[in-house]
């Protein structure tokens, strides 16, 4: 399958799930997964979901500006580099962010997130 298409499909799925119900992100992560969120490091799906569901806002909407992807090596992994805006309910200005994902294939023919790094982009 075309890597660009896979990356786009993942990004759409990830952020629509995030914006609708963050708890549903759990099956995108595994025990070995790592998230660094604004410098805070978390490992493992339950801990990652706990972090994301405890972020200090109820509703949000991601709008994506750029998606870049590259294969990461012989194991079939894929790197996805995203930039966009994050609109929080009730806030006048959207936050700008960048995020990178390292996706690894699962035996079922899908992908899970092995590495996830998120940073807000301050002006």
């Amino acid at each position, binding site marked *: 399958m075309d890597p660009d298409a896979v990356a786009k499909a993942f990004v759409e799925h990830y952020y629509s799930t995030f914006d609708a119900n963050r708890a549903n992100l759990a099956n995108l992560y595994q025990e070995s997964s790592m998230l660094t969120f604004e410098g805070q490091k978390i490992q493992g799906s339950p801990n990652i979901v706990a972090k994301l569901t405890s972020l200090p806002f109820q509703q949000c909407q991601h709008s994506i500006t750029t998606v870049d992807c590259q294969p*990461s090596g012989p194991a079939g*992994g894929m*790197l996805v580099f995203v930039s966009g805006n994050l609109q929080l309910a009730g806030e006048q200005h959207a936050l*700008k962010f*960048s995020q990178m994902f*390292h996706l*690894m294939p699962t035996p079922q023919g899908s992908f899970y997130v092995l*590495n996830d790094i998120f*940073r807000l982009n301050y*002006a």
Partner: protein
Amino acid sequence: MHYVLYRELISLYIFMGLGEWGKRGRGREEMEEQVEGLGRAFVDHYYYLFDNDRSSLPSLYHSTSMLTFEGHKVQGVDEISQKLNLLPFDQCQHVISTIDSQPSSFTGGIMVFVSGSLKLPGEEHQLRFSQMFHLVPSSEGSFFVQNDIFRLNYG
């Protein structure tokens, strides 16, 4: 001298068993510290070369390396070298704001995620950017950049 210090750091981290992080018994915090230290050393070295000796940057890439620069994809040392040499500025200065690193797999690779500013001479305002690197151990006992993605962050 700067380059020598970087290579010594790389050797030290590899000697300390960075490539075996998947084995049991490895303290997670210790490994995280090693990875963060290596990420910082790489970032320091990479942008030093970029700002002071850009023609030496291709030495950090291999034939399988990929660079996506503002959406433009190139592969291999020659194409990457050409892309970096043809950027429309002779001088620049990178100022780094954040560096985040994680081990990328069970084979010793490292992901490094950087944000910062790029100053160009004669330009009043700095450009803000984000960049990610995937570093992979080389057979020579060092690391090379397997993946490199660069994006400007427009205000």
